[in-house]
């Protein structure tokens, strides 16, 4: 009833190709943004911002990155944690070497390093695919973590290899490091997420996105219609790792603030992979939904029993979390391979037909 595109005729290809062709969708997105910018920072507790919103938003960028590579270009990667670590250490090195450099620029630049490393570790994708590639990307994961852990230069020779984010201001406002208000951190990350979502959405509905999807769906046919597989795959690796790198920088500087390399181990790679499977492979919306969903589970799992008065040990909660993650993956792969994003679409379809069942 309320969600109808009836009567909204497109009179030009430009209107038909718009990012949200349907009026209700446009209104909905505007409403979400308004809530995110104008309501959430003022009504939520710092706890909620710090444990749910900030990590979820950071994972949105990482998930977006992996989705470009795996969901759009069809190259399965298990190296996300490694690429995020590159971003984190690049952020740390740059900001300690050039303390004057605007920290937002530092974040954006650290993605460039991750992109370069991503391209390097993406080279095997020119020869191998599928599961073989997944194993090759594990090389990135394990080698990079080892590198940051063992080579003192990366952590400015901290004996335990730990890096800590020094405080940084932008326009006189403390945005990272001790003393940065959760609201400010939240708004900064939110803005980056909005920008990157928009850019990626634009990319995937342009030539680049079609190139990636062609390679994903059938690489032989893609080559025969003139796509250079090498460019298609390496560009996917570059852009994907760029986003993962930026996410890694934020994960370190804005969320954890003090990290050891272990924070970026292979489990992180799986967590981000789970986000895009649950959220929806090959969907920008799916990356967002998945990131929020998977980030929220552990928090809910540790809070809910407590709130309900069921005693549950930390260990138990952790094991349950692992089981739930695993089951969710299997569940979604079997029942809804297109993830939450698809469920959302189905819900919209229903809404459109309402009150009729078909």
């Amino acid at each position: 009833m309320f969600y109808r595109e009836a009567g909204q005729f497109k009179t030009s290809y430009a209107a038909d190709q718009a990012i949200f062709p349907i009026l209700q969708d446009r209104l909905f997105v505007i409403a979400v943004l308004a809530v995110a910018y104008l309501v959430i920072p003022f009504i939520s507790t710092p706890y909620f911002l710090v444990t749910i919103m900030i990590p979820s938003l950071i994972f949105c960028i990482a998930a977006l990155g992996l989705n470009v590579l795996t969901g759009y270009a069809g190259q399965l990667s298990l190296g996300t944690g490694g690429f995020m670590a590159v971003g984190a250490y690049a952020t740390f090195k740059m900001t300690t070497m050039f303390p004057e450099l605007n920290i937002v620029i530092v974040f954006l630049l650290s993605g460039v390093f991750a992109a370069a490393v991503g391209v390097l570790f993406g080279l095997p994708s020119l020869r191998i695919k599928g599961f073989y590639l997944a194993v090759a990307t594990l090389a990135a994961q394990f080698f990079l973590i080892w590198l940051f852990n063992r080579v003192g230069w990366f952590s400015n020779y901290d004996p335990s290899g730990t890096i800590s984010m020094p405080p940084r201001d932008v326009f006189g406002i403390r945005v990272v490091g001790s003393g940065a208000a959760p609201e400010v951190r939240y708004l900064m990350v939110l803005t980056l997420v909005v920008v990157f979502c928009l850019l990626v959405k634009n990319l995937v509905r342009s030539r680049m996105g079609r190139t990636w999807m062609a390679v994903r769906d059938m690489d032989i046919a893609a080559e025969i219609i003139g796509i250079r597989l090498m460019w298609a795959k390496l560009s996917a690796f570059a852009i994907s790792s760029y986003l993962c790198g930026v996410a890694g920088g934020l994960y370190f500087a804005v969320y954890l603030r003090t990290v050891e390399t272990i924070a970026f181990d292979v489990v992180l790679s799986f967590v981000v992979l789970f986000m895009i499977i649950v959220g929806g492979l090959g969907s920008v919306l799916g990356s967002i939904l998945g990131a929020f969903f998977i980030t929220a589970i552990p928090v809910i799992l540790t809070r809910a029993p407590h709130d309900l008065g069921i005693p549950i040990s930390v260990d138990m909660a952790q094991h349950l979390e692992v089981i739930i993650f695993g089951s969710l993956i299997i569940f979604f792969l079997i029942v809804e391979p297109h993830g939450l994003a698809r469920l959302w679409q189905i819900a919209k379809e229903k809404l459109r037909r309402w009150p009729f069942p078909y």
Partner: protein
Amino acid sequence: MQVLFDFLIGPFFQIFEAPIFFVEVVIGGMAAGIMYALVAIGFAVIFKASGIVNFAQGAMVLFAGLTLVGFLQMGAPLWLALIATVVVMVALAYAVERVVLGPLVNQPLIVLFMATIGLSFVIEGFGELAWGSDVHRLDVGLPRGSFFVGDIMIDRFHLVAAGSAGALVVAIVLFMQYTKFGRALRAVADDHQAALSVGIPLRMIWVITWSIAGVIALVAGVMWGTQAGIQFSLVLIAFKALPVLILGGFNSITGAIVAGLIIGVGETVFEVYWGQMMGGATENWFAYVVAMIFLFFRPQGLFGERIIERV
């Protein structure tokens, strides 16, 4: 210059100066390699029958080990605990077939691979939920200690590990060649559709292969557990079977063993002679990087044949 020397020439000097030590290092590497091979064989069995790369094989090793330790701690005698664990592994195989593989039967293999990643988490979570996540000591009375052959020290336990790997391979080969199920299994591996059309129950085959993989996981769990205790890191160690498989080619059990040895020896020698210069712990990545570089030049693996795709 000095760096180059240290890197390119120095280690070889060391090898020549202390050959006995070198041989011991190699033997240590082979022992590690057999351990990888034990896990890799589990992968290979499932791959051969279904084309699925079972990422959960490592979790199954942990699960089998934990279950065995759990039964032992409940006071069961060893033989009973072993049988009970095998029963649990078969039940697990059945459950996996029902819940995961069955519903995904016609999906692309990469989807099944991702599903086994999820499965890996589930199995691991259940194992630890049921038996706790501390490090468990496992002692099933395998011989420990060492003896000398000439100047070279040999660990009895390593011999046992090699022996069981060998026995396992022989058992699998015999099973494949001489039993009805084994033949059916090979038929399925050759051609799913054809196997189905002559009435081989595919689902049955899958339960059996996953059971075999479960038993192999138990053997690997016992070996690993005796050496290092049963703990979560087993899952990570088992990851290393993946590059081993890539080198060896997925459907070759001999390939798995040869590649396991290559990786085991390679990473140990590299760590001892080169790793120290680089800060140590290079075995964390050595296998993967070798596999990655190797794949770049020979995508079909060590023993695989190059296939030309068709359209």
